[in-house]
């Protein structure tokens, strides 16, 4: 599951959001942020299931274990933190690259770092 914030939290923030005066630059900025949040939720609904399944498959191969995404991802974090896995390991970086591209496609598809990453992998 995507967290910090989760889709549920974004929905809560959107439900509580009230547009302010159109003359107020700050209020206009927040309207754009809210539009962006709705678009993010739409992309997440479409893209997240397949991204999660692919990430789970990659993690199972990388860690040579069965398990769901949350437990395997937590294991990967613990292994990195404890120094049991080289942070520049090629198989690890391949997983991190795929995960980063899938996540940016949901959060910020126009972000230039995705183009840079794809260019470097070509």
């Amino acid at each position, binding site marked *: 599951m995507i*967290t*910090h*914030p989760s889709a549920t*939290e*974004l929905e*809560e*923030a*959107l439900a*509580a*959001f009230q547009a302010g005066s159109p003359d107020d*630059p*700050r209020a206009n*900025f*927040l309207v754009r*942020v*809210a539009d*962006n*949040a709705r678009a*993010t939720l739409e992309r997440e609904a479409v893209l997240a299931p397949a991204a999660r399944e692919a990430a789970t498959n990659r993690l199972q191969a990388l860690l040579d274990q069965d398990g769901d995404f949350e437990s395997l*991802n*937590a294991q*990967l*974090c613990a292994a*990195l*933190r404890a*120094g049991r896995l080289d*942070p*520049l*390991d*090629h198989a*690890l*970086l391949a*997983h*991190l*690259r795929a*995960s*980063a*591209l899938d*996540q*940016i496609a*949901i*959060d*910020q598809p*126009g*972000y*230039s*770092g*995705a*183009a*840079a*990453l794809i260019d*470097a992998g070509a």
Partner: protein
Amino acid sequence: MDIPAALSALARRLSPNATRALDARRLSGGASLETWTFDLDDGTALILRRRPPTGSMSQAALPLAAEAALLAAVDRRGAPVPEVVRICEPGDGLGEAYVMRRLTGETLGKRIVRDEAFAGVRPGLAARCGQVLATIHATPLDGLPPLATSDARGELARYEAVYRQSGAERPVFEAAFRWLADAAPAPVPAVLVHGDFRNGNLMVDPGKGLVGVLDWELSHLGDPAEDLGWLCVNSWRFGQWRRPVGGFGDYAALLDGYAASGGGEIALSRLLFWQALGSLKWGVMCLMMYASFASGADRSIERAMIGRRASETEADLVLLMERAA
């Protein structure tokens, strides 16, 4: 507090021929610091920076009097900064505040990297940033207000603690913390570091280029390469990722401009270390700002959504780790 009235009362002390302040209005900005723009009736264009009585002071931020003292110190060295006109006293009725001259130019990074109006100055901007950073870093430390000192390992530890507190489980950040801890360069003697030297805090004129370095509240003593690396973080290239220096220039131009102005030779690898640490710091800051939504302190949509910018730094960090592997 009636800010326009207080500024009018102060007018004579800000400029000998002035009698009152005109057109005082608050610019949108942070909650902890207010920025006001105003003119005097003799035509002087000014900016007021003040901390409202309720304004919280984040741990890292400088007192405004210290910020003004820093501006004056680097101004004397020839760095392009607004001239400080007055550090306010209690009798001025403005609280913790100072007044500086208002520079004119563009600070919106997107325009600086894209607009045709800046096409003429963009090619020289990276070298000019190097020159200005060399000037700032050469500021004698004697006589500066008290400043915190930080280094690479200290910053890594500080941000890792914030990340742990967030409860997030993000393998890119875990890998980056370990990679950067191993790659941290040997400490060098600390210099005056701006601390937020990036496209967005640089005022650029379409004819004159870089005319002002703004937002000094994160200044501290540290590794000079910190400022050069921060300028190259992809989050402030505004889409122009092929131009690593602020979205407008190349590494060599920045480093050569820095060395040519007496800043010394900085290896690209050292700059890239600080660039990566900069991306990691920005990613953790996004999580930190989201935390104020999660805790209930600020339930705004803005605070919720900022957490979804952490992934931009993950994409940038993966690229930097692939290059290092």
